[in-house]
């Protein structure tokens, strides 16, 4: 998390305020060699069309996913990535992107699998930065490659596999389905306006609460809602308890990384995991329970 806290963010009352920085915080550190700004979007052409000066692109498909199997990159590939973007273990990485930081939190989550904890998300992402008329450039920065030694990827703390979800179900643990109500009820097999990426069955994992991920963001500028507003949604409305283990899921684990971030860092949930297999796995499994 960011070591220098941001007054603008502190006022929002988050459990771990260092996990979020404001656009002004970033603007003040464009030339700070200890800070690396990372843009992650759904459309990889968005970054080259214009980005925050000094920002590098980390693409969720090409940089974070294993090129062959459905998994994330290995320790060696992560080390190469960090070397390429000039990051050392001491560098604070700040993620931002389009769609209310949906992909930025996904990249943040993958970085946490390798325990790069000096990390934060820029509140409001690309939308807020542009709305404020802040500078953009097409110039792609070059950084001196670093020697980055990463630990082996540790999935156990923040990533759930299907066996974990089964066990969680048996323990009557809480799940949050962050997809749209139409996907949750099985009316759709995919997000509105998105293609079906292969789920054979519709519905949700039994007992899951439905809290669409975007409820955690202010639509006008993409910023995270304040802690009080988030507590109203997740604690009061859904009855989630920050001390209980929670698993979030969506379609392939990207939208749910946003909710994972909100629960863990903004509301201080102690044990929250992202099930990245999500509906494209669960909706295809044979003989698993499904509710509609």
């Amino acid at each position, binding site marked *: 998390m960011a070591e220098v806290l941001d007054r603008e963010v502190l006022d929002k009352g988050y459990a771990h305020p260092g996990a979020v920085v404001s656009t002004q915080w970033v603007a003040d550190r464009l030339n700070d060699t200890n800070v690396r700004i990372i843009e992650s*979007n*759904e*459309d*990889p*052409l*968005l970054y*080259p*069309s214009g980005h925050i000066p000094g920002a590098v692109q980390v693409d*969720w*498909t*090409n940089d974070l996913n294993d090129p062959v199997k459905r998994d994330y990159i290995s320790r060696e590939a992560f080390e190469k990535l960090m070397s390429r973007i000039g990051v050392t273990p001491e560098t604070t990485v700040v993620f931002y992107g*389009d*769609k209310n930081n949906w992909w930025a939190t996904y990249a943040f989550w993958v970085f946490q699998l390798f325990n790069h904890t000096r990390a934060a998300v820029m509140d409001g992402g*690309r939308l807020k930065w542009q709305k404020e008329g802040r500078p953009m450039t097409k110039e*792609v920065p070059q950084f001196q490659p670093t020697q980055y030694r990463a630990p082996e990827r540790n999935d156990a703390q923040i990533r759930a596999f299907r066996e974990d979800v089964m066990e969680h179900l048996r323990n009557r643990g809480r799940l949050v389905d962050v997809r749209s109500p139409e996907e949750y009820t099985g009316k759709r097999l*995919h*997000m509105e*306006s*998105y*293609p*079906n*990426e292969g789920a054979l069955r519709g519905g949700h994992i039994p007992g899951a609460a439905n809290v669409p991920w975007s409820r955690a963001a202010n639509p006008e500028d993409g910023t995270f809602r304040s802690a009080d507003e988030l507590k109203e949604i997740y604690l009061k409305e859904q009855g989630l308890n920050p001390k209980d283990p929670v698993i979030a899921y969506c379609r392939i684990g990207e939208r749910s990384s946003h909710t994972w971030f909100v629960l863990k860092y903004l509301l201080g949930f102690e044990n929250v995991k992202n099930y990245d297999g999500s509906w494209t796995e669960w909706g295809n499994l044979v003989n698993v329970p499904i509710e509609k």
Partner: protein
Amino acid sequence: MLELPEKLRFLVETMASVQNQNERVQMLLDFAERFKEVPEQVAQRPFPEQNRVAFCESEAYVWAEEQPDGTAKFYFAVENPAGVSAKALAYILDRTLSGVPLDQVLRVSPDIVMAIFRQNISMGKGMGLMAMVQTVQKLASDMIRNKHQ
């Protein structure tokens, strides 16, 4: 890949010949910047749902206007300002399929999307862009059917 109309084949072959990733990205960005939205005399906001491309999260719309020679002029709108890839593809489809015999338009494989964008596209995004090609083909098909009625 099935046979392609000449201009589209030339573009796909040109993109395939560009090995440098940055050069390919620059070409695609250049296409996106040249994209011109559907003129007001053809369509005005709010755009009708029937012209919307299904499964394209960039909120792309397509129109086809019949030309005197029996071909079509295709028009596009991309409502998502971050839909850079959709704008690039819209420009490509207009420049390479407008004015082409409709039966040739129908033979274009939506796989051209993967040939054009290659590693610059995810599976979901690729499917959305392929749907743009399929919408162009549906409009061409409707035009052929109307001619025979």
